[in-house]
């Protein structure tokens, strides 16, 4: 029933009115009038009665007579407002027409509105509906505000306001206070907020703020701050100007948001994108960016840029022997040391380089990791190449101290290649390639040094590159061959074995081992080469045994890394089985230096090899600076006296002393001794006299292709025609040893 024709769709169908009046006549009439107009009316003749009614059933609106005996309307209204749940219940205070004081008191008591008593009921009706509607709107607003507050709370967001011409008019919402780690009752003025900001950032912010206000522009920035409990937060601030009716700026309103997590995530992403996860140094991407900026800046400033490519020597060996964890540890320490060699800056400056002044390129200086064991030092401004060389020296110096990883001290050296912009390249790629050429030059000249790029180096590098790729194909093209140098027992004047030596038949050229073995070791090709050599030696042993009854062993030289392979024994087993020769037809030679370097890793292999009958010979014996005591513990069968001692025999007394000592030691340990590099009859004579009758050298034969060796045996040894045979025959009995 809508007798007044009011649009009531947004209101309860029968709004509930609590009508309070001590005057029975008015109570009756007003009640009747309101019921007539679609209200549900509860009458209360006094304030206390009204308050009691409230708790029974809450009305939508209260109509309250101001003047009543005992509890009057004002007191009733105050009590009502103090009751939880009725803080915003609409209350209409009825007053007399001429009663201004009552009107004011009504508002003070918390009345929503006042109404001058009038028998014109439609006026009261209209006023009540207006009150209900605005109350509904207000309720919705409050709910929306509460929702907003909750949402802001969840988003760690709040708002603030600043009125330009009002002192102390900077206010922050309760949610905003929480962003700053404060409770809703706390006061937080602008100065207190600024005190939480580190002074550098504060200066920047205040300058920005002055600028924004001066231009009436929008403020958008992030503010780092330290909360009272010490937490570091980043608060995002956005504010826009508010205008008064005259179009002037009256102040700013804005929002705050705690974006610490987002910023941390962004920082982390940036860190991952631009920095090496292992060493924390700038990564390849960041280095490229920095080098390009440095080149740009150098082009404008007309100065030079230095790029140092730093490659660790033999890092792979460390990685392979100590494991990747130790390798990583080592890289971290190397990174730390390298960082100290330059004015390293970790800052990422994406696009902010401009405007920092013309010295800003200095901030690009850094050491970065390209990957693996390759590092780069960028010197954004060098006076000349000597500047870069000085840094390279610092780098080499920094690595001189051993690095303790994997439970042991490691000595690491590096090869440093230097390229200078603009002389050695115009782009990052050019500079990197040319520093790489220079670095490889250092490697080939013995490592642990630095070199500046020159075009000649490039030619050399190119040659090497060709050699490397040709070597890769040499095996499959059957260009690698074995030559054999006989081992001779001069007492019996007969061959007692042979040492297999690798040769590379490259077209018409026979490439000597010194020219390709180091390269093969560097590139890892030495492994397939050695494996092939083992197989080929086994095949040759079989062939010779068929051709002339060969029953001794062929010695194959192996690098230590092959001894570290757990499948070495199995591989040898397969080689000898394939040709039906006994295990002892293969002998393995390892140089003393190689052996000592990797002793712990090599020993297990030596034992297993010894068990299956493969003898081990120590090559270049006497050149290692190690204690000889380890020999007693090793399952070896033979030592080979290094050719340098043999060469000086009969020339310097020291060499015969060394040879004598080696022979005595070997005899004490039950080892065979064989002398290498015997070229003269005199050397043979001395060796023989000192007690060494096994020899190898040009005096007897150089290394020969297998068929030539067979011919040499047939033409020289068997007919006993060579000069050394007659000489040996006439030599003294070997009885002395280990004495001067």
């Amino acid at each position, binding site marked *: 029933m809508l007798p007044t024709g009011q649009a009531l769709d947004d209101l309860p169908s029968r709004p509930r009115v609590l009508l309070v009046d*001590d*005057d*029975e*006549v*008015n109570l009756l*009439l007003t009640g*009747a009038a309101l019921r007539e107009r679609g209200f549900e009316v509860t009458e209360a003749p006094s304030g206390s009665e009204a308050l009691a009614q409230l708790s029974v059933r809450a009305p939508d609106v209260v109509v309250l007579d101001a003047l009543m005996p005992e509890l009057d309307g004002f007191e009733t209204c105050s009590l009502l407002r103090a009751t939880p749940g009725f803080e915003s219940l609409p209350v209409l205070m009825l007053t007399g027409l001429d009663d201004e004081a009552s009107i004011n008191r009504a508002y003070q008591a918390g009345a929503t509105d006042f109404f001058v*008593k009038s*028998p014109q009921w439609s006026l009261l009706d209209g006023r009540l509906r207006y009150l209900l509607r605005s109350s509904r709107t207000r309720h919705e607003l409050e709910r929306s505000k509460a929702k907003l507050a909750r949402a802001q709370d969840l988003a760690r967001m709040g708002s603030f306001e600043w009125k330009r011409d009002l002192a102390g008019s900077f206010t922050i919402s309760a949610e905003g206070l929480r962003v700053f780690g404060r409770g809703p009752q706390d006061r937080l003025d602008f100065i207190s907020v600024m005190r939480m900001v580190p002074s550098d950032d504060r200066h920047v912010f205040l300058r920005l703020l002055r600028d924004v206000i001066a231009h009436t522009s929008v403020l958008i920035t992030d503010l780092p701050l330290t909360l009272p409990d010490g937490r570091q937060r980043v608060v995002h601030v956005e504010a826009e100007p508010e205008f008064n009716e005259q179009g002037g700026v009256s102040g700013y309103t804005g929002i705050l948001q705690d974006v610490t997590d987002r910023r941390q995530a962004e920082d982390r992403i940036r860190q991952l994108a631009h920095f090496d996860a292992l060493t924390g140094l700038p990564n390849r991407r960041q280095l490229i960016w920095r080098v390009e900026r440095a080149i740009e800046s150098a082009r404008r400033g007309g100065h030079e840029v230095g790029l140092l490519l730093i490659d660790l020597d033999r890092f792979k060996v460390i990685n392979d022997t100590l494991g990747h964890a130790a390798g990583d540890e080592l890289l971290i320490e190397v990174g730390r040391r390298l960082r100290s060699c330059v004015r390293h800056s970790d800052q990422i400056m994406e696009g902010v380089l401009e405007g920092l002044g013309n010295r800003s390129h200095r901030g690009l200086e850094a050491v970065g990791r390209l990957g693996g064991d390759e590092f780069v030092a960028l010197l954004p401004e060098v006076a000349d190449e000597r500047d870069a060389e000085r840094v390279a020296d610092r780098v080499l110096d920094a690595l001189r101290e051993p690095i303790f990883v994997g439970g042991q001290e490691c000595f690491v050296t590096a090869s440093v290649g230097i390229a200078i912009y603009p002389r050695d390249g115009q782009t990052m790629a050019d500079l990197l390639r040319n520093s790489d050429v220079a670095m490889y030059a250092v490697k080939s000249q013995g490592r642990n040094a630095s070199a500046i790029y020159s075009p000649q180096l490039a030619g050399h590098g190119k040659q090497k590159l060709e050699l490397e790729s040709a070597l890769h194909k040499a095996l499959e093209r059957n260009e690698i061959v074995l030559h054999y140098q006989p081992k001779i027992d001069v007492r019996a004047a007969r061959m007692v074995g042979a040492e297999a030596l690798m040769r590379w038949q490259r077209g018409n050229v026979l490439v000597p081992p010194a020219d390709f073995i180091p390269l093969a070791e560097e590139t890892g090709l030495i492994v397939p080469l050695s494996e092939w050599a083992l197989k080929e030696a086994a095949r040759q042993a079989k062939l010779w045994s068929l051709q002339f009854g060969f029953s001794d062993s062929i010695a194959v030289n192996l690098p230590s890394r092959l001894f570290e392979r757990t499948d070495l024994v199995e591989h040898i087993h397969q080689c000898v089985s394939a040709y039906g020769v006994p295990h002892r037809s293969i002998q393995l030679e390892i140089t003393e230096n190689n052996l000592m370097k990797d002793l712990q890793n090599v020993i297990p292999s030596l034992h297993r090899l010894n068990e299956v009958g493969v003898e081990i010979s120590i090559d270049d014996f006497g050149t290692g600076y190690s204690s000889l005591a380890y020999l007693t513990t090793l399952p070896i069968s033979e030592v080979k006296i290094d050719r340098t001692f043999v060469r000086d025999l009969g020339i310097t007394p020291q060499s015969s002393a060394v040879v004598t000592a080696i022979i005595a030691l070997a005899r004490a340990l039950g080892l065979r001794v064989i002398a290498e590099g015997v070229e003269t009859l005199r050397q043979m004579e001395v060796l023989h006299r000192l007690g060494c009758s096994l020899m190898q050298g040009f005096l007897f034969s150089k290394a020969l292709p297998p068929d030539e060796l067979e011919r040499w045996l047939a033409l020289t040894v068997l007919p006993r025609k060579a000069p050394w045979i007659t000489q040996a025959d006439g030599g003294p009995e070997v009885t002395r040893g280990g004495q001067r």
Partner: protein
Amino acid sequence: MTASSPAALLDPEAIRRLRELDPSGGNKLLERVVAAFGSSLERLLPDLARAREGETLDLTVVRHVSHTLKSSSASLGAMALSARCGEIETLAREGRSEGLLEQLDAMLQDIQQVRAALAALL
């Protein structure tokens, strides 16, 4: 302040509005209002009499009684009574007692006339 006819005592417009609230008379509103006015007077008038008994007039009681009667008489269309009550209320609120007793006496007379007029209405 002379006595007038009952018809003149009650504002016909006010009476019309009263009747409008209960057009069919089914709710007996008019009767109930007149009865309420009567019972209200029965409560108020003894209060007023007591207020006049003391050495000085109790202005608080006078003010309350006049205020209540001012609005209820207006609701019933007794505009003259309502106006007099308003005057008395103002005097009482301002603490002025000269002529107040005379006004109160006149008010009591007015009340008797209004009661008669209302009775005639039913």
